[in-house]
C-alpha cells in the first residue's frame, strides 16, 4: 500500500471519480464493444473499430497523459492509475484497439517532446484521430525488456535509423512511430510518420485474435533533428518510464481478463449440473477456485501498487512493475487455463469466448518481457 503526498492511503477500490470512470467505461464497452467484436473484426484489415476507438477517446481514454493545453486532462487525472483502471475494463472484453501504444506515446511526447511535437501530436492523439505506436522491443527471442533492435547514427544534421523492432502493436495502421534507438553513448527517441521512406511493416501471425502485432524494419531511414524526442543519448530515463507505463497497462488489462474469466467460470460452476448437483459444489473444484481468487487478489494488489508507484514516480517503480508483470503474467495464464479445464470440452470450442480471453492472457504473459525476463531485470535492479 502506498501513501501519497497527503498521507492519504490508496484505497481498495479507488476514489469516487475512479469508481465513476470504471462504471462509465464498463457500460460503454458493454454497449459498443462486447467480446463478440473480436470475432467480427477477425478478417478486418484494421483489426479494431476506429469509430469505437474515437468514441473511447471522447471518454478520455487517450487524454490521461495529455495536458489540458493540448486537449487532454493530465492535470485532473491520476495518469497511470486511471489508465490502469480503463485497461482493466478493456481486458474484460478483450478489447481490440490501440489503447496501450497510443497512451505510451502520448505520455512520452507530453513528458519529453518539443513544443512543436506536442502541438502537432497530442491533440490528435487525445481525440483518437491519430494512432501512434512504440517501437521498443527487438524481434524474435530478444527479451522484450530492453530496446535492442534499432541503431541511429548521425548523418549531417539528422540521423539514419537501421534495424528491426519486434512485436509492435497496431504498427500496420499507426500514423506515427515512436522509435527508441541506441545512439553513440546512450538511447535516443524519434517520432516519425509511418509513411517515412525506408520503414516497412511485416504483420505477424498472432495468438491474440484481438490484437495485431508487426515487426517493423528500418532500412537506413533518414530523419532530421526535429524528429528527436528528448535529449540525444539521454533518453534512457524516459524510456524506462515508458516501459513502466506499458507494463502497468498490460498488467491491468490482464487483471481484467482474469477477473472476467473467473466470473464467467464461477457462474458456469453454479449453473452446470453433474451427478445431480452444481459442479461448483464439488470440493476439489472449490479449492481450485479458491486458489484462483487468491492469486487474482494478489495480482490486483501488485498491479495497483505498480500503477501508484509509476503515477507517483516512486523510486521503486521499476521494481514494482517487474514484480507485477511476473506475477500477473504467470498467474493469468494458469488461472485462465484452469478455467477452460473447468468448463470441460465446451471451453475449447471455437464458439465459446473463453479462448479469446486465454489467448490474450498468454500473449500478454509473453510480450513486454516474459516473467523470466523480468526476474532478470529484477536482479539487475537490485544490483545482484
Amino acid at each position, binding site marked *: 500500500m502506498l501513501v501519497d503526498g497527503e498521507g492519504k492511503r490508496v484505497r481498495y477500490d479507488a476514489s469516487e471519480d475512479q469508481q465513476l470512470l470504471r462504471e462509465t467505461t464498463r457500460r460503454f464497452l458493454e454497449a459498443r464493444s462486447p467480446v463478440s467484436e473480436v470475432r467480427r473484426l477477425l478478417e478486418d484489415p484494421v483489426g479494431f473499430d476506429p469509430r469505437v476507438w474515437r468514441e473511447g477517446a471522447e471518454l478520455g481514454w487517450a487524454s490521461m497523459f495529455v495536458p489540458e493545453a493540448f486537449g487532454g486532462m493530465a492535470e485532473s487525472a491520476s495518469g497511470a492509475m486511471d489508465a490502469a483502471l480503463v485497461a482493466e475494463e478493456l481486458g474484460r472484453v478483450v478489447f481490440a484497439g490501440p489503447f496501450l501504444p497510443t497512451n505510451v506515446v502520448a505520455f512520452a511526447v507530453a513528458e519529453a517532446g518539443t513544443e512543436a511535437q506536442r502541438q502537432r501530436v497530442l491533440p490528435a492523439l487525445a481525440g483518437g484521430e491519430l494512432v501512434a505506436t512504440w517501437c521498443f522491443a527487438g524481434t524474435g527471442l530478444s527479451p522484450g525488456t530492453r530496446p535492442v533492435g534499432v541503431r541511429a547514427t548521425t548523418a549531417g544534421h539528422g540521423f539514419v535509423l537501421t534495424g528491426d523492432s519486434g512485436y509492435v502493436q497496431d504498427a500496420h495502421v499507426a500514423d506515427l512511430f515512436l522509435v527508441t534507438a541506441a545512439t553513440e553513448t546512450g538511447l535516443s527517441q524519434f517520432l516519425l510518420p509511418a509513411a517515412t521512406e525506408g520503414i516497412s511493416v511485416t504483420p505477424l501471425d*498472432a495468438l491474440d485474435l484481438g490484437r495485431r502485432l508487426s515487426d517493423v524494419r528500418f532500412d537506413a531511414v533518414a530523419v532530421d533533428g526535429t524528429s528527436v524526442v528528448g535529449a540525444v543519448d539521454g533518453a534512457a530515463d524516459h524510456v524506462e518510464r515508458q516501459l513502466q507505463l506499458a507494463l502497468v497497462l498490460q498488467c491491468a488489462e490482464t487483471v481484467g481478463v482474469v477477473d472476467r474469466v473467473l466470473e464467467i467460470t464461477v457462474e458456469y460452476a453454479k449453473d452446470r449440473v453433474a*451427478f*445431480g448437483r452444481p459442479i461448483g459444489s464439488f470440493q476439489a473444484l472449490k479449492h481450485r477456485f479458491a486458489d484462483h481468487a487468491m492469486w487474482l487478489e494478489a495480482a490486483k494488489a501488485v498491479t495497483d501498487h505498480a500503477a501508484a508507484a509509476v503515477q507517483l514516480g516512486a523510486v521503486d517503480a521499476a521494481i514494482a512493475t517487474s514484480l507485477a508483470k511476473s506475477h500477473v503474467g504467470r498467474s493469468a495464464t494458469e488461472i485462465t487455463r484452469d478455467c477452460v479445464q473447468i468448463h*470441460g470440452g465446451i471451453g*475449447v470450442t*471455437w464458439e465459446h469466448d473463453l479462448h479469446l480471453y*486465454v489467448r490474450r492472457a498468454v*500473449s500478454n504473459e509473453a510480450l513486454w518481457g516474459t516473467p523470466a525476463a523480468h526476474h532478470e531485470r529484477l536482479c539487475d535492479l537490485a544490483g545482484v
Partner: protein
Amino acid sequence: MTTNVDDKTEHVDTDEERAFRLRARRYLSSAGLPPRVPNEPVYQWDDDGFVARDRSIQRALWDGGFAGITLPVEYGGRGLPDRFDTIFVEEARPYRMPWAFGVNRNVIIPPMLAHGSEALKRRFIPPMLRGDHIWCQLLSEPSGGSDLAGLLTRATRDGDVWLLNGSKIWTTGGNHADYGACLARTDPDVPKHAGLTMFVVDMKQAGMTVVPLRLADRSAHFCQEYLDDVVVPADDVLGEVNDGWRVATTMLMYERAAIGRGWDYGKERAARAAEHLSLSTTVVDVVRRAGLASDPHVRQLLGEMWVLEALMQLTPPRVAAGMASGALSGHAAAIVKLMSGKVGARRTALLSELAGPLGVAAPPDGDVPFAVREAGLERVTLHNIGGGTGEMQANTIAERLLGLPREPSPDRELPFNQLAHNAAPPAPRAQPPQDR
C-alpha cells in the same frame, strides 16, 4: 545413440505361429499398403481421402485373411488365439493400419460380442471386417460432461420402432460413420443408471444432422450430432432395453484399454518405451539456434522437459504391465490419463517459457520451428477432451486404487427425473459454421 531393440516375440513362435507370421509378412509386403508415418496428424472433418484410404486398407486386410484374426469364424473372423493377433501386430508395424476402423476394432466389436444378440453379430460384424461399415460411438452429450449416466437423449417407443431425440458430441468420425452405438434414456422414472439403452443407429438418415465441432485452434476432428426423431427398429438394440449402462461400461473399459495399448493395431505406445530416452530434438535445435544452449536457466527448462517426456514414456508400460500381471486393477489406466493431462500442461508451460514472445507472434514465413510457433496456442487449447476428465480420473485413482471412501451422493439412488440436470442443448444450426 539409440538402443536398437527389436521387441518382436518371434523367438517364442511355435511352428504354426511361425507359418502365420511368415504369411502375414509376405502378404503385408505385397499388398501395396502405405508405410506407417509416426505422429501422423489426426484427420479433419472434411478429409474424405483419409477415410477412403482406410476403407481400402481394411479391405486389404480382409482379402488377405487378416481381419478379425481372433474373432469367431461365424462372424467373419479367423477364430485364432490371441497370440496370432500379437504376431500380426508385430509384423504390421511398418505399415499404416486403418485408423478410421479403430472404433470398430477397439470399442464396438468387443461389447457387441459380449452383449449383442446372435442376429446383430452376424449382421454387423462381417461388414466392419470387410471395410464396408465404419461405426462411431454416440455417448457424450453437450449437457453431460463427465456425468455420462445423466444423459438427456430420450428414446420413446412408437410401434415397431424407437424414436430418438437429443444431441451427442465429441464424436470421432460422426460424419463418415455408417452406424453409431447410441446410448439413450428409455426410462426416466428409475435411477439414472437403470433407465438407459444402447441402440444401433443408422447414421445416414434424415433425422440425424451431423455438424463439425470446431475447436479453439480452428481444427475440427470431432462432430456434434442432433437427433430429431431418429428412427431405430425395435430389434436394433445392443444388449437389453434398460441395460445399456452395462454395455456402455464394457465399451468404456475396452476404450480405456485401447488408449493404453495404442489405437490402431496397438503397440505403438509400448514400442516407444523400448526406444532410447531422448530429448525432443526440435526443442534442442531451437535453443541452439537462439544461442541459448549455455544459459543455465534454459538448461533447467530443457532438463525438466526431458524428465516429463521420460515419465510419459516409462509410466504407461509399467502400468500396463501391472494391470497385465494383476498387481494393479484395470482402474490403474486412470493414472496414465491423469498424468498425460498434468504432464501436458506443464510441458506447454515450459515450451512457452522457452519460446518466449515467438510463441505468441511469429512472422508468417519466418524460419520459426513449429514447436515454437505453436507453443502459445498449445497453452490455449491443451485440454483433456470430454470435459471433467481429469477430475474423473482423480476420483477413480483415489476411490478405486487407494480405497478412499466415496462421497455421499444421492444421484445414484434417486429416480432420474427427480435429479437436477442441465437444460437440453439448442436446436441444430441451419448451416455448419463457415469459419476457416
